[in-house]
């Protein structure tokens, strides 16, 4: 545990020094090395330890989720570091601090420590999204700030209620106490915790700050957000589902998120917003897996990692395309992309729609194997929609000019391929012929669905700040009521 905590502290220290001394790039590089050294010292995990003395210390655990995140976080950081290497030192200092916050979040098992870490992560994201002084980016950042603060406020009420009932903040201790929801404050507290974390995670309806924020962020920042920071809310939800009987609610949120995000993504024309809506849709898979628990929990962890890698790749490539051409909408980008961006988008799409043998296939099918049959079919339906939606990108795969900023794309693509190879070699049950056939048929059917759907142009309700805020209030009333009624 000491090694992991020392790694996080080294990240914080190097980030702070990077902000002030003008050596942010060097600090970032050193931080990546420090993170890897620390990982090498504590892998393959450590049992729960308190940082600080009992009764108030903060429990840290190096379990599978923590290990999985620590393994690929340096890769994402390196990709962002390389792509944004011309930025000033303070930018790199902020990125280092943000990555360090994520490293701290995945270790924590303490309700309030998760709150502080999520807030630090959001604050640094606000700064980075609004780093370029453009009115749209600043508005996206402010919107994110307001909605995330509402979510975290409800989370704080939840912390107070759970602490008031059980007298502890440690999630491990809460799991030992095996809370039952017959006692109203506990059920309500747990519901508010889930609702607050769902806002941060980007669940459909309550998390619709996400498209604007991700769509307007600078390329490297969008990669970092999609590939890393956005997953912190999911990790919090996973921790809650681990220690309290809220799995059903998390699964229900997952189903809602999967199809809701897809609905908006199908007809979106702006490339970066389109990718952001797909982040929401893919969050559905993870939440369903985490909510089901048991073997699906591990599968969902793997899916989260895979998603971080290929979604990071897609955002990186999309950002490079938008930077190189100055266009944002998919039709006007067609055939004008630099080669690196086109290839990056192609590999990312290949991975996300689940064509064998890349990461999407590995993680989605493994999740399908581990989940029950009903959910397995839900995953297939989602995959069909994802393919239909991503078929829009086919005209973009033909490069219009050579070159492009390939550094970050190459790193992330390497990560995707590496993950796929590892998964195919290690995970059981992936070499079945019917799985491969099913994946390929899904892709073909999805393309057919795309041809049908492109004939329609439905008018979806517009997403506004007030509507999302009301949705947050409503959802955070409904979740505790559900837990009270059925818990």
């Amino acid at each position, binding site marked *: 545990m000491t090694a992991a905590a020392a790694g996080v502290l080294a990240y914080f220290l190097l980030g702070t020094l990077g902000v002030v001394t003008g050596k942010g790039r060097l600090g970032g590089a050193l931080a990546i090395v420090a993170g890897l050294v620390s990982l090498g010292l504590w892998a393959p995990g450590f049992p729960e330890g308190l940082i600080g003395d009992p009764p108030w210390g903060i429990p840290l655990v190096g379990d599978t989720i923590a290990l999985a995140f620590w393994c690929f976080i340096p890769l994402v950081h390196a990709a962002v570091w390389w792509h944004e290497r011309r930025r000033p030192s303070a930018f790199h200092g902020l990125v280092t601090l943000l990555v360090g916050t994520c490293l701290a979040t995945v270790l924590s098992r303490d309700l309030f420590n998760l709150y502080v870490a999520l807030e630090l992560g959001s*604050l640094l994201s606000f700064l980075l999204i609004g780093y370029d002084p453009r009115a749209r980016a600043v*508005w996206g950042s402010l919107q994110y700030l307001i909605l995330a*603060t509402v979510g975290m406020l409800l989370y704080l009420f939840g912390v107070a209620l759970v602490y008031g009932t059980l007298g502890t903040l440690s999630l491990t201790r809460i799991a030992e106490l095996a809370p039952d929801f017959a006692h109203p404050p506990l059920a309500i507290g747990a519901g508010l915790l889930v609702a607050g974390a769902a806002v941060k995670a980007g669940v459909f309806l309550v998390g619709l700050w996400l498209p604007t924020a991700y769509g307007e962020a600078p390329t490297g920042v969008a990669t970092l957000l999609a590939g890393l920071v956005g997953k912190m809310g999911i990790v919090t939800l996973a921790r809650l589902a681990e220690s309290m009987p809220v799995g059903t609610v998390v699964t229900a949120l997952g189903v809602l998120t999967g199809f809701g995000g897809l609905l908006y993504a199908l007809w979106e024309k702006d490339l970066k917003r389109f990718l952001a809506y797909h982040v929401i849709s893919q969050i559905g898979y993870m939440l369903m897996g985490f909510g089901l628990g048991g073997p699906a929990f591990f599968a969902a962890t793997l899916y989260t990692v895979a998603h971080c890698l290929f979604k990071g790749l897609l955002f990186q490539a999309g950002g490079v395309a938008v930077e190189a051409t100055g266009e944002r909408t998919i039709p006007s980008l067609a055939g004008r992309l630099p080669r690196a961006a086109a290839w990056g988008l192609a590999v990312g799409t290949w991975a996300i729609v689940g064509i064998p043998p890349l990461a999407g296939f590995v993680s989605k099918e493994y999740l399908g194997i581990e989940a029950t049959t009903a959910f397995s079919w839900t995953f297939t339906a989602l995959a069909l929609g994802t393919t239909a939606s991503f078929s829009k990108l086919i005209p973009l795969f033909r490069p219009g000019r050579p070159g492009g900023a390939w550094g970050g794309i190459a790193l992330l693509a390497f990560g995707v391929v590496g993950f796929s190879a590892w998964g195919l070699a290690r995970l059981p049950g992936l070499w079945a012929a019917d799985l491969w056939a099913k994946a390929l048929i899904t892709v073909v059917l999805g393309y057919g669905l795309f041809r049908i759907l492109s004939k329609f142009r439905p008018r979806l309700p517009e997403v506004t700040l007030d509507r999302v*805020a009301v949705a947050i209030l409503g959802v955070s009333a409904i979740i505790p009521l559900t837990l009270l009624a059925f818990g």
Partner: protein
Amino acid sequence: MEGLTAGLMAVALAGLGLWTLVHRRNVIWKLLGLNVASGGSILFLVAVAHRPDGRPPILGLGPGPATDPLPQALVLTAIVIHFATLALSLVYVVFLTERRHTQDVPKLERRRSRR
């Protein structure tokens, strides 16, 4: 009993703030509402720390029951976080007012002016 009263008042404060947040159009009003609601959540934590006839959790203040020190420590952290977030969001509001010449949320949300 005081703990319960304080808790209920905290909920009322949060309700007031959240109503301002969703009902007002001006972004400054929204932030004010958010801040009032944050005050509610902080008061709620303090209420949870309350014990009947409790004294401050400081050694050497004599016998008798003490209030719970942990929520009071959490409150300290939460206050600073809320203050920091508010300061940052006000800077963003100043920036948006300077560029877009409006603080009205529906006008800010229109995608027309893309800069």
